[in-house]
């Protein structure tokens, strides 16, 4: 099968600092791939390059066989939506308007309305706050809005950078269920997530990053059993159930 996305020998720099060195991986259609590792390992930077927010210093990124070039707009039009880390919403625009911005590549109004209704179903608190300026939402609510906005564009590949950051456990579960549902619908996802439970539950394969390189790759089951993973990412954490079937997300 042709991969949906392919990163080939990718290197990324901030000024004089090299953040990512020669990283290669692929995402198959319908696959959920997780990048894991410590803070500063280069996960967010890799994601920024795929979303077009940052130009590679070396290597290439292929999306559906064609090289990705031309920044964030081009990536979005090609079908890649990025939900960046750290609650990036338009603070002066209402919740509704933020969602519409996410759908600006869609022409069909009915589709937009259907997507929005779906988002309000998943995140009921956003419905309650739909007329409120996004800057007045609590931190966790802003996180939900950022994710909902990314989903509005109906992407083929969704980049999720820390989607549960700052969410209460009840919302971590809700977001996890929604990601599992998106996966069941066939969406391809690149996930960066610190909560080990969620990553182990949803990802098909994982790449452990360390000092800007991929240190270890494998299926989620292989990775969960690895000692290196335990030392660098999982800690003493043992998943309650080894790998539940992601097609049927466990009820909360």
């Amino acid at each position, binding site marked *: 099968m042709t991969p949906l996305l392919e990163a080939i020998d990718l290197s990324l720099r901030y000024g004089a600092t090299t953040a990512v060195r020669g990283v290669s991986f692929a995402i198959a259609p319908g696959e959920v791939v997780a990048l894991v590792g410590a803070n*500063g390992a280069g996960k967010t930077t890799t994601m920024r390059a795929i979303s077009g927010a940052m130009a590679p210093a070396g290597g290439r990124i292929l999306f559906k066989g064609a090289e990705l070039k031309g920044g964030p707009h081009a990536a979005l039009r090609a079908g890649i939506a990025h939900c960046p880390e*750290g609650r990036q919403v338009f603070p002066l625009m209402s919740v509704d308007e933020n969602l519409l911005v996410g759908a600006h590549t869609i022409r069909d109004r009915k589709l937009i309305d259907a997507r929005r209704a779906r988002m309000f179903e998943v995140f009921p608190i956003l419905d309650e706050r739909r007329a409120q300026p996004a800057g007045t939402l609590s931190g966790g609510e802003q996180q939900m809005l950022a994710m909902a906005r990314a989903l509005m564009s109906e992407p083929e590949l969704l980049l999720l950078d820390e989607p549960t*950051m700052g969410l209460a*456990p009840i919302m971590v579960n809700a977001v996890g269920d929604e990601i599992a549902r998106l996966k069941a619908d066939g969406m391809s996802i690149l996930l960066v997530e610190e909560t080990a439970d969620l990553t182990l539950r949803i990802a098909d394969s994982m790449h452990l990053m360390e*000092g800007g390189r991929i240190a270890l790759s494998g299926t989620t089951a292989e990775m969960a059993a690895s000692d290196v993973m335990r030392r660098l990412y999982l800690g003493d954490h043992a998943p309650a159930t080894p790998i539940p079937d992601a097609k049927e997300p466990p009820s909360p």
Partner: protein
Amino acid sequence: MTSARTTRLLGYAAVAAVLVLVGLVPSTSGPYTNHIFVLAFLAIGLAASYRPLLVAGQVSLAHGAFYAVGAYGFAILAQKHGVSFWLAALAGGGVASLASVLIGVPSLRTAGAYFFLCTFAFSVVITSVFQNFKSLTGGFAGISGIPYPPGITTEADFFWVAFAACALTVAVFVVLDRSLWGLELHGVGASPELAEAVGVSRFATLLRAFAVGAFFAGVLGAFYASFTGFIAPQSFDLWLSVSILTAVIVGGVRHVWGGVLGAAFITLVPLAFHWKGSGDAIFGAACVIVVMFVMRRGIATELGALIARLLRQVPAMPEHTHLLDAGDDAVEARDPAAFAARPVVLDVRAIAKSFGGIRAVRGVSFDLHEGETLGLIGPNGSGKTTTFNLISGFARPDHGEVTLRGESISAASPHRVVRHGLARSFQASAVFGHLTVFENVLLAVRGSRPVNPVARMLVPVRRRGAHTAHAEAVLAEVGLLEFAAVQADALPYGHKKVLGLAIGLATNPSVLCLDEPATGMTDVEIAHLTSVLRRVRANHDVALVIIEHRLAVIRELCDRVVALRSGEVIAEGTAREVLESPEVMTAFLGGVPA
């Protein structure tokens, strides 16, 4: 030879070269060039004295007006009343400074365009005063016959007077930039909220920068009046203020030599080409556009970065970027029940706050004993961060009272609350972005170690042994010491969170409020964070209030937990009691057994 020494030698060489070149001017060129250089020296002084306010993030259009006020003040005293030259020049600066305080006090309290418009209005009004207050200013005819300094008789002599005034002004502002006073300005410019949170008053810092800058502008204005011998309202127009602003931006706001290089560049180049009329205005505008495209941070900053790169002085991110793994786990003998016997340090009584129609906090009460660790949990939007804002002075409660060590702090501003011993961190990684990790912590240390106001302005930051040692100790304690020279903006997310913790700790608080300290950390990193926090509270006997969603932190650190929902307390007790209470399970955990 170390590269730091190379830079210093290069600096001396550059200064020597400039002095030699300047020294050649009067002997090798005619009166026209001489005249131009005097005006350029005054412009350089103006830019150097204007830069601090811009560093602190405020744009003023009044600097040219203060120059004019100083010129008039001096001329009236020296020419009409026969006051001695030097006394009259200082008085000119004093009058300008007084004017800046009068417009700064009402307008600097608010943020945004208000201050900018006030300074614009002042410039317009002051011109009208010069035109119409004829008995004092001579109206449109102006004031003529203004004296030279004693002992100076020719324009060629005045060249050196203007050079000395310029050099002295530049030297003063270079010293200020390197002192704690300068660090405060950079902090307020990078993040006014965080500056307040570490005990730096935004208002006082801005007002000081405004008043000191206006004083020097006034004195330089006096030299201008003396040099030309004649001043009138049309000698000073709004373009002067705009050109000073342009000079600093072209030169680079954040670089200590930015104002100097920018002003020299935009005044000397057009004059050297004998451009007349609007030539220099067009040149200034073109400079701004070119700089914005190729040297976004200004000439001085980009040149500095280039030299640092050539000398390989760029502080690289440490190869080993693991967060917090310096932790040796402190063994704690901790009896949560024992804290009840210690005095209450923070007492929160029935505080409430509404935003528009939304009642974010509806009568929350809790207390905190010395050394205790209290967890604050609840679903997203339940009012946890608003509660922190009400405690730390960032919002004022509609009802209720907050008492810290026996004193009410409900109406205190954030910088007062932190000086009284309560510090806080922020949910979003709030750091002073363009400062280094070390400077971030140093700015917080500053508030906890008072120094006299004169020393604060004159002693370079790097010579403050006690402050720098304290800052290094804090960085070592949280495991960020090897990142000391890195610019805070360049840190990964989790490292920024830890820096936020270090900043709070550096203020030497008796209560430290942490808003989601573990957000964005892996389970391994959270384990390290909890061991760092254990060490911190053991070493400092500091009481902690922690907002957190990651249960590992709540379970392992909190002696007591308060749960909020919809702005109200729904449970209080030990971590186990609260996490097992049915209400918390439904609202917060989502039915997952704790």
